[in-house]
């Protein structure tokens, strides 16, 4: 019986990434010294389920790796090990490494062995040394080729690993606990049984046998490396060790695979931890291992953003929905069905005296439909914490790199927003936060000199206002320097020297392509690309971004976004017999005009003078080839002043019809993209209306 496991892979990966996120946020909230066992438990659970899952699916690389993390976490959980910053850093690095591994496996790429090995080594050193925090000067490098390296940390449960049947034999690392003999087990008997299966060679590690005078004959101080040759099923070997399970740690691997270091699993506390390293290579080389791990963490950071971006675009396929939301939906559908059958009954033998009943029924139907729509939209809503939860890590890593002290405060993480918005807002936010970290918050010394607390604060805040969600990034850093910005803009020729700009306009300058005031380029920010991309991304989501800043006090960047991308507020306009929808957000104002009020430029283009500004006019009839309707109407009409990509222009339409919320339907789903049109919607009478793409129209009209 073989089940196609690959059908579960998607779910597995999703769970893993969720688990990793939980681990990451857990690690970041860990308070040094004061260990909150609940947090460690959460992290441990994350690691454990990844290990379990990857074992099941045969991703042994991941399982092996997680196993080591688990060992370390277990000791922390039991209080046998101090939670130290270096250890946490290494664990964070491991989370990154795991994420890389899983992404690679998911994309069916080859796992980067080198990076995995580095992280593994770092982990092992923390695990073995245990003292890395206390004596960071003498960590021990353990070479991967150290086959016989057996780490003994006195656990009491065997973690089994799935290992395929070996062709030639098995390599068994057998580390009994001190009290193995007291439980009545005799290793010699086990060995005899093994020898019956195949030719057995034993190698006893007696390094940790104490002096003769201190020797307790009832304690088992020896561990063994056993090699059983022959074609033996793994289960047979496991059977032999069944009796000592729980009294030893054991690692069974086929010969071919035994090149990797064998590492035991740990499950429970042992009152007397006895870390021992038995190695073929007994002289430990002092090596800087901690920085290696940290460096790795940061290196992957820059790529992280790119990877993440790619990832989110690739896997935008499934969504996890709260069961409550589905239950509400089902209830609602039930109500609709009931109302429908009630109406059916009324309609069956309709007489005029049933009009009241009919009206009531229709009113009920209307209410239910509205509720239904609302709850369906609700399903697409996710808390913004999906995005926010990644930032503590970002801040932690970057502030460490910049030697700044920064705390990140998250407010309103449970604010719900459409899934599509959640996915697309991530990259702009990463960019803005990096900016705040790099340019906003000053170095601790500068802060103290400026009379501010040494530790800078970045607040990430989300809340609902009207039909929008507002995301604010507030820092208490140095703020934007208006004069400097203006000088830079003039120097770069982006602004005329004598132009008077308002404060707001000056701040807007940072959104110009190629504008950067950073004196020094860093890999975090300062290349002058980015802010314009940020603004473009946010505008493409139908939102806008504004900056409030006070020199020396800090900067607030506020992003306003529509709650959902599936519905928009639109103004319907008539052009001939056609109805178009103009997104309300892009409309500045509408003016009734007659043709005489337009000015021709060079006999072709038309402009309209609006308060001393000449705006280009786009005739909708012309650009969309509409010939229907009353042509005399075109003598007078309505100018809709719209803003598209920062440019104002006027759309000449016949008349304004009304404002309404419209559900956006894609034209591309069944046809293709049409220039000047961003989508379609269905009007109350069931007909289709096209939604205008204002920036696209502007571009189209220029050609």
């Amino acid at each position, binding site marked *: 019986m073989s089940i196609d496991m690959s059908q579960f892979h998607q779910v597995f990966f999703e769970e893993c990434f969720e688990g990793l996120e939980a681990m990451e946020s857990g690690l970041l909230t860990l308070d040094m010294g004061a260990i909150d066992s609940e947090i460690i438990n959460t992290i441990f659970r994350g690691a454990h389920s990844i290990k379990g899952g990857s074992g099941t699916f045969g991703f042994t690389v991941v399982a092996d790796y997680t196993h080591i993390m688990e060992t370390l976490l277990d000791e922390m959980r039991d209080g046998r090990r101090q939670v130290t910053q270096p250890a946490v850093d290494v664990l964070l690095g491991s989370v990154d490494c795991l994420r890389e591994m899983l992404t690679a496996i998911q994309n069916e790429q080859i796992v980067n062995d080198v990076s995995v090995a580095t992280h593994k080594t770092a982990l092992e050193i923390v695990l073995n040394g245990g003292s890395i925090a206390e004596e960071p000067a003498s960590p021990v490098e353990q070479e991967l080729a150290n086959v016989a390296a057996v780490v003994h940390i006195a656990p009491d449960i065997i973690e089994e690993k799935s290992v395929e049947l070996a062709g030639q034999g098995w390599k068994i690392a057998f580390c009994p606990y001190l009290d193995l003999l007291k439980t009545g087990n005799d290793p010699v008997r086990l060995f005899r049984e093994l020898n019956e299966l195949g030719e057995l060679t034993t190698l006893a590690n007696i390094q940790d046998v104490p002096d003769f005078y201190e020797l307790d004959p009832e304690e088992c101080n020896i561990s063994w490396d056993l090699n059983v040759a022959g074609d033996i099923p793994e289960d047979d070997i496991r059977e032999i060790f069944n009796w000592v399970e729980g009294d030893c740690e054991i690692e069974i691997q086929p010969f071919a695979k035994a090149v990797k270091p064998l590492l035991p699993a740990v499950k429970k506390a042992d009152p007397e931890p006895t870390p021992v390293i038995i190695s073929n290579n007994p002289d430990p080389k002092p090596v800087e291992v901690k920085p290696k791990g940290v460096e790795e963490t940061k290196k992957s950071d820059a790529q992280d953003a790119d990877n993440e971006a790619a990832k989110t675009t690739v896997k935008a396929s499934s969504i996890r929905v709260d069961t409550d939301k589905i239950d509400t939906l089902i209830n609602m559908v039930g109500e609709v069905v009931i109302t429908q059958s009630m109406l059916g009954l009324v309609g069956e033998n309709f007489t005029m005296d049933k009009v009241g009943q009919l009206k009531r029924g229709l009113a009920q139907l209307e209410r239910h439909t509205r509720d239904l729509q609302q709850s369906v939209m609700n399903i697409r809503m996710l808390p913004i914490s999906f995005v926010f939860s990644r930032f503590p890590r970002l801040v932690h890593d970057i502030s460490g790199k910049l030697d700044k002290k920064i705390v990140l405060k998250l407010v309103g993480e449970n604010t719900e927003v459409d899934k599509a918005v959640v996915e697309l807002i991530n990259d702009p936010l990463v960019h803005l936060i990096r900016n705040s970290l790099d340019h906003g918050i000053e170095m601790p010394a500068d802060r103290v000199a400026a009379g501010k607390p040494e530790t800078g604060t970045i607040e990430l805040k989300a809340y609902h206002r009207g039909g929008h969600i507002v995301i604010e990034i507030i820092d208490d850093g140095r703020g934007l320097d208006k004069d400097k910005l203006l000088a830079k803009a003039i120097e770069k020729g982006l602004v005329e020297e004598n132009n008077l700009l308002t404060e707001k306009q000056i701040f807007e300058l940072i959104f110009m392509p190629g504008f950067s005031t950073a004196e020094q380029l860093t890999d975090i920010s300062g290349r002058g690309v980015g802010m314009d991309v940020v603004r473009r991304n946010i505008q493409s989501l139908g939102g806008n971004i504004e900056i409030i800043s006070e020199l020396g006090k800090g900067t607030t960047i506020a992003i306003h976004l529509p709650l959902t991308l599936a519905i928009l507020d639109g103004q319907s306009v008539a052009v001939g017999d*056609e*109805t178009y929808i103009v997104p309300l957000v892009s409309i500045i104002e509408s003016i009734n005009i007659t043709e005489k009020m337009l000015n021709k430029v060079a006999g072709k283009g038309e402009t309209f003078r609006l308060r001393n500004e000449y705006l280009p006019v786009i005739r909708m009839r012309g*650009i*969309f*080839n*509409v010939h229907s309707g009353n042509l005399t109407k075109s003598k007078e009409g309505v100018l809709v002043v719209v803003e598209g990509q920062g440019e104002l222009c006027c759309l000449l339409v016949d008349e304004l019809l009304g404002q309404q919320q419209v559900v956006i*339907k*894609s*034209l591309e*789903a*069944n*046809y*293709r993209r*049409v*220039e*000047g*049109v961003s989508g*379609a919607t*269905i009007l109350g009478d*069931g*007909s*289709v*209306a*096209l939604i205008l793409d204002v920036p696209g129209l502007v571009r189209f009209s220029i050609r």
Partner: protein
Amino acid sequence: MTTDEQSNNSRVEQFLTFQLADEAYGVEILKVQEIRGWEAVRVIPNTPAFVKGVLNLRGSVVPIIDLRERFSLEHCEYSAKTVVIVLCVENGPNQFVMGIVADAVSDVLDINLEDVKKAPNFGSKIDTRYMRGMYVYKKKMIMLLDVDKLLNPDEVEGIESLV
């Protein structure tokens, strides 16, 4: 004998035939999603003339193509008898729903593919790329269309540039 019959059966496909300016055309019935009466559509600006517009089909926006104009047949006013055949078009991994306007739907025929003749080469004047072949039924010729090729959105685009 039985195996022979079966293999024959497997080569029989059902086709929906329809009238277009006194000519008979056929499409695979498995591609047909539904048949509906003509109703007004919303014009899409700046598209080829044979793309009549889009229609609201239970919430999805479906483009409607006039085959008369597509095949450069004489134009005729839409009447109460004019029908729209809604088809499911496959283009690689993607599926599109599109409608075609026909004068009238005639019949559903079981056609043995062995009886389908290859469309003759008309030279460069007539494009036979969209034809699966020809079939003679009651002494009348029926053109069997390859829906996937005919209504492929890229093709629609391509035609526009050719015109």
